[in-house]
């Protein structure tokens, strides 16, 4: 039998890399998408329960006799929290589950970058997240009679997309820690959830916390993203932290910083995990 020489080229062209990455992303998104269709209990605990939480915060503001636009601020904050939780728990922490089930080894052995796997997780979770956000905004606005005064739709879409991409980068950096640690990162994630809710201004203007805390909190893309979106939807009543132009610029910088940081972080931490022998440890 004739032996055909194999393709012993070491490097992939950028087109091959992109095709591989996109297939990987689609492949990993699939289980999330199909899970949303086949197991519909999430509609209750991912949508109905968070809506109740939002309603509770709205009622707190109403009891305090806050200006009516604060209802809209809370609803928008609650909607955007869905994306933050998607990144934190459905992407970063997912590697915790993948490690325990043995999938992490198989992902690492695949030729595509882990960033594509994580992108697939984020995209796959997007359906549930979008539904949650839309229901919260729609139901909350209907129940409490919120009106929005959109300044610029293209700017709103741009801010939204930049925020999501930057969040994805940040989530990827956090996910890379799971290659080396497991329980410590899980606990760290649980620990930061509430402080992040506090400093990113999900339910109140970030300006309240002062320039220093607000500035530090701006490293989390949601802080400036939320602030910009509130300025674009409630131009009169929202006490802005920074002008929209500055916030869009900073978000753009964060996108590049976190995406590059994620790529570097994965490469560095994977190397270290391989040297220490912690990549395939299930119990740490």
């Amino acid at each position, binding site marked *: 039998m004739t032996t055909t020489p194999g393709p012993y080229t070491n490097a992939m062209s950028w087109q091959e890399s992109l095709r591989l990455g996109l297939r990987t992303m689609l492949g990993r998104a699939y*289980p*999330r998408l*199909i*899970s949303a269709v086949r197991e519909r209990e999430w509609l209750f605990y991912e949508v109905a329960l968070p809506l109740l939480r939002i309603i509770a*915060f709205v009622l*707190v*503001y109403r*009891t*305090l*006799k*806050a200006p009516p636009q*604060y209802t809209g601020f809370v609803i928008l904050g609650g909607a955007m929290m869905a994306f933050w939780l998607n990144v934190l728990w*459905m992407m970063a922490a*997912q590697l915790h*589950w*993948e490690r*325990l*089930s043995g*999938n992490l080894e198989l992902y690492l052995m695949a030729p595509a970058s882990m960033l594509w796997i994580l992108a697939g997780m984020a995209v*796959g979770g997007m359906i549930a997240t979008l539904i949650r956000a839309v229901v919260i905004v729609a139901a909350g606005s209907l129940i409490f009679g919120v009106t929005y005064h959109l300044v610029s739709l293209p700017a709103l879409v741009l801010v939204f997309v930049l925020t999501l991409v930057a969040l994805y980068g940040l989530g990827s950096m956090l996910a890379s820690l799971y290659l080396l640690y497991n*329980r*410590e990162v899980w*606990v760290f994630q*649980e*620990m930061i959830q*509430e*402080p992040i*809710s*506090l400093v990113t201004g*999900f*339910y*109140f*203007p970030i300006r*309240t*916390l002062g320039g220093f805390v607000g500035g530090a909190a701006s490293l989390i893309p949601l802080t400036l993203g939320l602030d910009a979106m509130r300025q674009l939807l409630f131009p009169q009543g929202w006490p802005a932290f920074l002008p929209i132009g500055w916030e869009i610029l900073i978000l753009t910088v964060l996108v590049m910083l976190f995406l590059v940081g994620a790529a570097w972080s994965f490469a560095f931490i994977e190397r270290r995990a391989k040297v220490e022998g912690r990549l395939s440890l299930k119990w740490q």
Partner: protein
Amino acid sequence: MIHVTSSKRISIWQTFRTAAWLEWQAQGNWTKPWLFLLYILARLLTAALVLVFMYWVISGFHTHGSFFGFLIVGSAAWSFVEQIMVRLSNAILEDREQFAMLKSVCQFSVLRQTSTIPPLLTPDTQANVPA
């Protein structure tokens, strides 16, 4: 002859003590106890601070009306509700997915004859790994 009632009491106490120790190992032994306590306090405080800042944004900084106390107490009480309701059911779920120890415990437990837990204890890792 072993007195049935006292052996049942001892067994329940042993089960409780072992379960408490096990939960500490699973949740807290990744760090020193004082650091773990700090972490728990930080979580609770920051959850409460969200409401505090919401209050101060509207009512002015460092005011303490009656509703302020209501918010703080409510926030503190909520943590118990969350821990008891959510953590208990999470403990069963975690055991099914990761540890598969409850099955062994139930086999030797005094609850064996009356418990409905055994049918729930089949470890089924793949079915419960989130996609």
